[in-house]
């Protein structure tokens, strides 16, 4: 959808990315920071998949009841890989947060900064 010469779907992805970035930067709770990171990752995936779609197109599985035009298969492959990477980063981040909590008893950045 184009509004005032601006592609709204792309803009929405950018806005989502920036919302996630704000969560990452401004929230004090470590879990919320990780959630912000996840929102950013989702925004980038949405951007990539949106770029690959075709107006009125079908998914790129040829022959099973689909007909041209097809969406590009490469963004789908990229995002699949990207999701696995995002899951992996989240897993490591959560394990680190668990380690922090086990040692300090808190996962709030404000309190962590005050500890010696």
């Amino acid at each position, binding site marked *: 959808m184009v509004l005032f010469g601006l592609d709204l779907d792309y803009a929405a992805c*950018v806005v989502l990315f920036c919302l996630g970035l704000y969560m990452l930067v401004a929230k004090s709770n470590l879990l919320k920071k990780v959630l912000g990171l996840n929102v950013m990752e989702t925004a980038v995936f949405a951007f990539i998949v949106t770029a690959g779609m075709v107006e009125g197109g079908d998914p790129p599985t040829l022959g099973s009841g689909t007909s041209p035009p097809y969406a590009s298969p490469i963004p789908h492959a990229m995002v699949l890989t990207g999701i696995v990477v995002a899951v992996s980063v989240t897993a490591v981040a959560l394990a680190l947060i668990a380690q922090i909590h086990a040692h300090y008893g808190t996962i709030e950045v404000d309190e962590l900064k005050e500890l010696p």
Partner: protein
Amino acid sequence: MRWLGAALVVVAAATMIAGVADLPVHGTPDAPIHRHVGAHYLEHGVAETGMRNMVTAVLLVYRGFDTFLEVVVIFTALVAVLALPRGAAESGPARVVSTAGSTGATASDTDAVGTQRADVPVSPVVFFVVRLIAPFIAIFALASLYRGHITPGGGFQSAAIFGALFIALALVFGRERVARLVPVPARVWLQAVGPVLFALVAFVGWCLTGAFLGYPAEAAAHAVREAMVVTLEVGIAVGGAVILAQLFMVMEG
């Protein structure tokens, strides 16, 4: 910090929108993204790879090395989580934060951290529904794997569904019971299945065609190609599922 964050975000948004505005409107069929490589895959993909699902073709055949690295990434996540010290015993004494209001970190919470937490009591409705649906979820995951090269689906999707099933079962039945689904001696082998099978298939491809992860192109070698693809898919699915299950089991607190 909030104002700095807000300022940073506004600047980032402005620059990104300015750059993105220059892109061709998404969805137009003659944009650069749909020509060149993508168009080649859609035109010749079925003939060159024998698969109908172009996404799987890209993942396993054209860009198989990326998928190998992806399998390595999820393995890295598991190894990373296994390597980190776990529980209060290893991480040192948990310190109770005096400002109990914001974190609610009372003494009982910090005592519970690092010890095996008793599973949350589950309502009979949830218990019944999960037990009823579990086999169908498993079948769906298997079907996703089996049909992955024709319809949407494939190794990772099936691994994710299996992993989610495992977690649902663990939440309902309790971790100790469900952990027996992945017997302890088998864990180090099963978690390595992804990268190792991939390397084996790539090696076979190298021997057969002289190219890393090369698929024999002759029509007569159709069975070999199928076998390689199925091995890869199964490797990804089993490895991924076991890794996701282990990630859940390992993380405490």
